[in-house]
């Protein structure tokens, strides 16, 4: 072996971070694990139940419905926000004062607290005083998000698009700006069309940025809670009850801590799994 002084001082530097992560993530997570295998009857009365809660939760038809609703929602969000954000970023100005102006306007929805976003859309969609709702009613469209399932769904979807497309656009814009001008010059010399430039230069160079955008938007939309809670409260019926809201109802509303904990873990593992699969697949494709 090469002479290398063993030096364990590095552990001292890692320790504070390890403590922080332990208290912010590991300890709470272990509490959840703890709850998921017990039936908690009172403050000091608990019974070990094994995987009972997992079995129960996985067979719950209401949860199945919420899960499908959630998947549909997340994929709709991806399907709309990615092409839209990419399109917006391609149209954004490249120089001059217009750059800052566009960036500020685009960033505005991202700066608004989430419950305020919900409130804005809750009011915007009202048929009596909301600009959007009233305008639709005035045009003769039968729109009411508090009564109609489809309307409620669309409202939440449009709200998410309004709220988060700017993030995708900003990510793509930064990716576009990072492409060295030589690529465009080479394409001009090779006589490439605008479509070829997009297809063979911009899109490949944006690949990494787009992967990040998909992961961020998938995770965020899969955990969406505040905005639909404020706008529709999960209704009408259960039509906009997504997974996190279902979970909250279980844990806080009914105080079923055991099933809620079991479900949290399943929820967490699913997101992790999806992101892992997606990331791996995209990387495989990238390497051809």
């Amino acid at each position, binding site marked *: 072996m090469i002479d290398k002084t063993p030096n364990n001082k590095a552990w001292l530097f890692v320790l504070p971070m390890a403590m922080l992560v332990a208290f912010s993530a590991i300890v709470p997570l272990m509490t959840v694990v703890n709850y998921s295998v017990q039936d908690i009857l009172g403050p000091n009365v608990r019974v070990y139940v094994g995987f009972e809660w997992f079995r129960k939760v996985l067979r719950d038809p209401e949860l199945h419905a919420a899960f499908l609703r959630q998947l549909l929602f997340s994929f709709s969000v991806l399907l709309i926000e990615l092409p839209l954000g990419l399109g917006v970023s391609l149209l954004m100005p490249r120089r001059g004062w217009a750059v800052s102006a566009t960036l500020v306007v685009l960033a505005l929805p991202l700066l608004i607290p989430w419950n305020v976003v919900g409130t804005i859309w809750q009011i915007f969609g009202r048929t009596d005083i909301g600009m959007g709702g009233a305008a639709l009613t005035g045009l003769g469209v039968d729109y009411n998000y508090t009564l109609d399932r489809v309307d409620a769904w669309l409202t939440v979807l449009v709200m998410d698009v309004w709220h988060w497309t700017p993030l995708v656009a900003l990510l793509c814009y930064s990716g576009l700006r990072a492409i060295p001008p*030589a690529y465009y*010059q*080479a394409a*001009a*010399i*090779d006589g490439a069309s605008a479509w*070829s430039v997009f297809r063979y230069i911009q899109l*490949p160079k944006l690949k990494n940025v787009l992967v990040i955008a998909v992961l961020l938007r998938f995770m965020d939309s899969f955990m969406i809670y505040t905005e639909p809670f404020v706008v529709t409260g999960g209704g009408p019926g259960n039509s906009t009850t997504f997974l996190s809201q279902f979970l909250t109802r279980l844990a806080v509303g009914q105080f079923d801590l055991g099933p809620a904990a079991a479900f949290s873990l399943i929820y967490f593992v699913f997101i992790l799994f999806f992101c892992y699969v997606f990331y791996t697949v995209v990387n495989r494709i990238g390497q*051809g």
Partner: protein
Amino acid sequence: MAELVLQGVSHSYELARGASAVARKKPPAFALRELDLRWRDGGAYALLGPSGCGKSTLLGILSGLLRPTSGQVLFDGKDVTELSSRERNVAQVFQFPVVYDTMTVRDNLAFPLRNRGLSSQHIAQRVRDVADALELGPALDKRATRLTADEKQILALGRGLVREDVAAILFDEPLTVIDPHRKWMLRRKLKEIHRQFRHTLIYVTHDQTEALTFADEVVVMSTGAVLQRGTPEELFLRPAHTYVGTFIGSPGMNLLPCQLVTRDAQVWAKVGGHELGLGDGVRAALAQRAGESPRLELGIRPEHVTLEPGDGAAGVPLEVTAIEDHGRFRIVVGKLGGEAVEGGPLVVKARLPGGEPAAAAVGQTVRVRFAADRVCLYEQGHLVAAAPLPAPPPPSLAAASDAAEASP
């Protein structure tokens, strides 16, 4: 393939951007001052200069990526100033390799032809020919991302070669990101390609070795102007400007303030109180000089400086201050003895063959001699007198130098 001509071309980025009236109060900065240049069809040329001298701007004007502020660009006599890069039909290889990552090598090569709507048969044939010439054949079905940096640069060159009618191929410091030991191979390949296809090649670089080994003729630029154009030999032996003298060569030319004095009906150069003899060629050139100023600069290449032991009577005393041993050669730096001059001691560098025992040691005083025929005289930076170039070497010698260059 074409002859490229620039007529009265200048460029200012400020004016091109349409700077505001406020900014225009002061005169706009010109990246390229008005110049005329002509590149013959089928020649290999280099544009040499430090960063920011305007050489990349010049290249951009040739390729059509920049529109000059003034002047005309002519390809084979046809005015192409207003034409786009595509219409001009030039190819360019950039500083770092530009390839289309998602395509295979084959598709990369075919891309410029497909964009021009040629038949797939013709494209396949051309791609095969060019791939053979560049030895890219085995890699044709690889993805372009998988190539090494130098292979990518070859591929970028291939995208230019694949068009039969390409007017010129422009290189913008193409070896910057290439490993030193691959640089030499790539440079040799470029020369081979040039011999084979006889395109007009223009090669921009700040590396004198690249410029001098690649080009038949080198254009040296500084601060937006052309200082000299000539063969590598001319640049070495008769630098037209002190800047060219110091920029080319390693180390650059020694420059010493001098005065002309006449003694025994002959002109002598007085440097630091010592009268130095001048070669016949230099004296003949001086006799034809129009200017009268006696204050000149004497330029002598370190290669043309020789040292002798200190006790010799001939030559000027030189106190050795440093010796750099480069293995193959040795650089001796010293202070010239004699009268004190403004601006500190006169420093002279000599480049002596390595290997032999050192002729001098630091702290010693030796005698220095300048090859009288290789002295160049400058007035305000411009060459006023130098011996003419020696007659071209016999062909056998030229072949030998070619062979020498072909070994790493």
